[in-house]
């Protein structure tokens, strides 16, 4: 029955990696939810919020081949844009007196706020990308990095809107494992379809050979800009989710450490596959959680402080040096049944 090439089966097979990833996450969330462990649920929520960031990063880096150090800037924009709309309705004018009157007096529902935050991030990406996406190779990576640093420095000083270096709080902790799962699934689905769209294909062509793709009529700058804007939207939403997860944000929580953690997750999983992005987040989240528990001590045994960070750094180094294509080897999840090779060939490797 499995070998029969019915339309339904072909469809299932086409969506196979995406379906498996989403069901896998669903099972994890349901399992954690049934244990009722609050600390575990928090780790899970954080992991799922990071998954939105990392999958968005994959959408850009995996398809364009440009390593971006700048996407955390969009997370920062999204977090603050959400705070402008939802944070502390009674003391908002104390934290952020420079806001326009409308924002000072009105609060949006969290879902709307997060969506608008994503749009703002996308808009900033459009402006910044207009300059940065003209660059190629290492210059483009440096450009994204410089953009991130410029924005970080500006937000740190823009005290009437961001309260400078001090904390903005409290925000409602509305991000639960289930709501974070919803956003993660939406992002995974978007990444899956984007990679298979004509734009995704065109962008991968520029990644594999910029000059040949230009000769074949691909608008390199346009495709990169499009991808930059789309992924900025998801990173902006992730920022909003993150703000409503930690309930108190400072500019410093969106600095190089977050850049490093998200990039590590992507690299560890495999930069050019959606499966890699998801697997990387899961694996590193588990490793960090286990090391943190060991740091806190189990019985009389405990690891020294910052073991988790050193562990992540070392794993990252080992993977980069000895398995640069990540745990998944840049492949997607295989169709496990026998079948026509010609249609599954494209599924296995999109790189």
């Amino acid at each position, binding site marked *: 029955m499995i070998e029969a090439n019915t339309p339904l089966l072909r469809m299932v097979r086409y969506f196979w990696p995406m379906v498996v990833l989403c069901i896998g996450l669903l099972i994890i969330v349901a399992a954690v939810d049934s244990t009722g462990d609050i600390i575990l649920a928090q780790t899970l929520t954080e992991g799922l919020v990071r998954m939105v960031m990392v999958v968005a990063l994959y959408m850009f880096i995996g398809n364009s081949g*440009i*390593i971006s150090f700048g996407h955390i800037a969009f997370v920062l924009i999204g977090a603050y844009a959400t705070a402008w709309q939802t944070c502390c309705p009674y003391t908002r004018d104390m934290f952020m007196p420079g806001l326009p009157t409308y924002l000072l007096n009105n609060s949006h529902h969290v879902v709307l706020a997060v969506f608008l935050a994503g749009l703002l991030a996308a808009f900033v990406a459009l402006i910044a990308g207009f*300059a*940065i996406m*003209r*660059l*190629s*190779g*290492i*210059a483009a*990576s*440096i*450009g994204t990095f*410089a*953009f991130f*640093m*410029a*924005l970080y*420095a*500006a937000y740190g*000083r823009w005290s009437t809107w961001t309260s400078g270096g001090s904390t903005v709080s409290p925000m409602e902790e509305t991000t639960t494992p289930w709501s974070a799962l919803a956003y993660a699934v939406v992002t995974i689905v978007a990444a899956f379809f984007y990679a298979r769209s004509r734009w995704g294909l065109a962008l991968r062509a520029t990644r594999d050979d910029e*000059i040949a793709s230009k000769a074949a009529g691909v608008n390199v700058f346009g495709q990169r800009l499009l991808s930059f804007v789309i992924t900025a939207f998801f990173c902006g939403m992730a920022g909003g989710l993150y703000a409503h997860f930690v309930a108190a944000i400072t500019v410093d929580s969106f600095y*190089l450490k977050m850049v*490093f953690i998200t*990039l*590590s997750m992507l*690299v560890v999983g495999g930069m050019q596959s959606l499966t890699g992005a998801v697997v990387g987040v899961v694996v590193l989240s588990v490793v960090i959680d286990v090391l943190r528990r060991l740091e806190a001590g189990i019985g009389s045994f405990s690891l*020294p*402080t*910052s*073991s988790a*960070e*050193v562990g*992540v*750094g*070392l794993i*990252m*180094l080992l993977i*980069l*040096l*000895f398995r*640069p294509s990540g745990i998944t080897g840049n492949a997607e999840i295989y169709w496990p049944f026998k079948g026509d090779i010609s249609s599954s060939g494209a599924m296995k490797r999109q790189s």
Partner: protein
Amino acid sequence: MDYAIQTIISALSLGSFYALGALGIGLLFSVLRLINFAHGDFITVGAYALIVPSSAVTATLLIGDFHPALLVLCIVGIVVMLAILSYFVVFQHAQKSSPATMMIISFALGYTLQNIIVMIYGGRPKAAGIWSDLTGQVQISSGVSVQLLQLVTIAVTWILLIALVLFLKRTRVGIQMRAAAEDFRMARMLGVNGKNVIALAFILSGGLAGIMSLLFVTQTGVLKFSMGVPIMLFFFIATVIGGMGSLVGSVVGGYSVGIVSVILSAILPEELRGFRDTCVFILVIIVLLARPQGLVLTKAAKERV
């Protein structure tokens, strides 16, 4: 006028500091296409090496109490060892990776180093002053007094620059290094030992980082595990602005960034002064767009099809 002289001297001193840092990064980029984000953390390690390794709140000087000549030798030695080790353990295995991947690798190395420091010394900042008489003011004419350390920084930079130029122009290995920077593959075909040249670049870069950690600790008197990060960012900007892979470019870039930052803080109106760093980073993007090879052109910088 007096104020102008003081500003010029502090601009030159900051520029010298950035030039030394940019040179440390430029040396590695020229032969290996590596933007070494761990360079700032090499400086941090050199600074922490001054004190007794412990997580105690107050720092006790160990190497920091040695005779100055021995102190310099020890710290430079330690940082050079670290740089060499990072080549043989890490970067040697990554030579075939793309520059962006190597950048992430150095990022990972820096992150690991920082957290190893936290593991050994604890995460809190510590006071550790060396050579405190250098931070005093000296009168150079009536009304103009500058910090002695600023003059020392400028002098040290120029001594090192002249030594480096002589080394690169007059010695056999120096000439090999310049050849490798120009065209690595061609140089290897003509009999230059690539491994030696890269190892040498790491030695020089580590040596510069060692000296800089001393200058930096003397200036601030504080040790912090993340102290290398912000200064590293400015070295990095300087390298990009000056031109990746060109040593002259690194020095020019370092001075430009130092002078521009001091001038911006002097002329920007009060409410905009906080946005100085933002301006400098936007300048980087503009330079990348308008003059992608940097201020100083090298032959090797051109991308080939």
